[in-house]
């Protein structure tokens, strides 16, 4: 279920370099393009009453999932998938709560080519997913279990 509002955060910085933010809300149905245009206009108005400088803004759309079942594994057991990306980059995707029966006998390896992990890898490679630099995922390099604090 999508929340009825999306959150717009104006990110500011004062004369000492300390960060501050202004948050307001818009209807969830507002497009990103329209939200950005509104953010630009608001930033101009805020800039005239604040001594801070604008360093950026974010529009965050949220979806809530209603799932009554309790968790069944430890979040510290993490499935780490490492991908090569276009442009010679890398991307890592971590999924917490890895099922123990997906881990190999060595306690580390996870087969990324078959079963449910294979389906996940296939979805990540065929979907719009990329690394934080916008580089598309091209191939799975490694899949393994990692214990994270």
């Amino acid at each position: 279920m999508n929340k009825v509002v999306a959150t717009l955060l104006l990110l500011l910085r004062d004369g000492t370099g300390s960060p501050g933010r202004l948050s307001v809300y818009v209807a969830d149905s507002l497009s990103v393009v329209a939200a950005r245009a509104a953010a630009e206009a608001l930033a101009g108005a805020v800039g005239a009453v604040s001594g801070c400088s604008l360093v950026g803004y974010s529009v965050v759309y949220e979806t809530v999932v209603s799932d009554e079942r309790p968790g069944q594994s430890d979040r510290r057991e993490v499935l780490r998938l490492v991908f090569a990306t276009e442009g010679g980059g890398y991307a890592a995707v971590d999924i917490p709560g890895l099922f123990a029966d997906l881990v190999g006998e060595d306690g580390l390896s996870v087969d990324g080519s078959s079963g449910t992990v294979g389906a996940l890898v296939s979805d990540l490679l065929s979907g719009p997913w990329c690394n934080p630099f916008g580089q598309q995922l091209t191939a799975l390099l490694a899949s393994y279990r990692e214990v994270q604090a």
Partner: protein
Amino acid sequence: MARVNLPPVVTFSWEDESGSRSSTQVSIPAATTVADARTAADALAVDMQANTGCVLTGYSIAFSTTETAPGLAAADSRVERKGNFVFRTAAGKLARITVPGILPSVVLPSGRIDEDAATVATLIASLLGAPWTDSNGADLSALVEAYESFRTSTKGQLPRDRKPDNE
């Protein structure tokens, strides 16, 4: 001024058997629409859920824009100095919007923000117009009060040159 739209980040939120929380973050191309991002996220969630005992509690999609050449902030500006604008919403509730680093020039001696100052009036008019709402989606309908307040400074916000000179 140079704005750059960053690749949006989809953050999936999880809860494990003990109630502890964790997350998975994956990026998508900058041109992706919200609808397409949600479709892809729903599909990926199904595949992820087949591999984890954690419960998916939701996800968010953050479309961020960064200013690569931010202007200089006023030397005496402080984010702890807040301009508070409290509005009545169309649902009859109150919503507060806080502006960090409010200029002293728009604050009256009593601490009230001068809503008749041109720049303040412009900001208020902007907030009363589309598309701004409160956290429940109700339109902002009228300004109720506007005032200055101060938040406690964290250690990192203290002046870097606060130690006396050694003469």
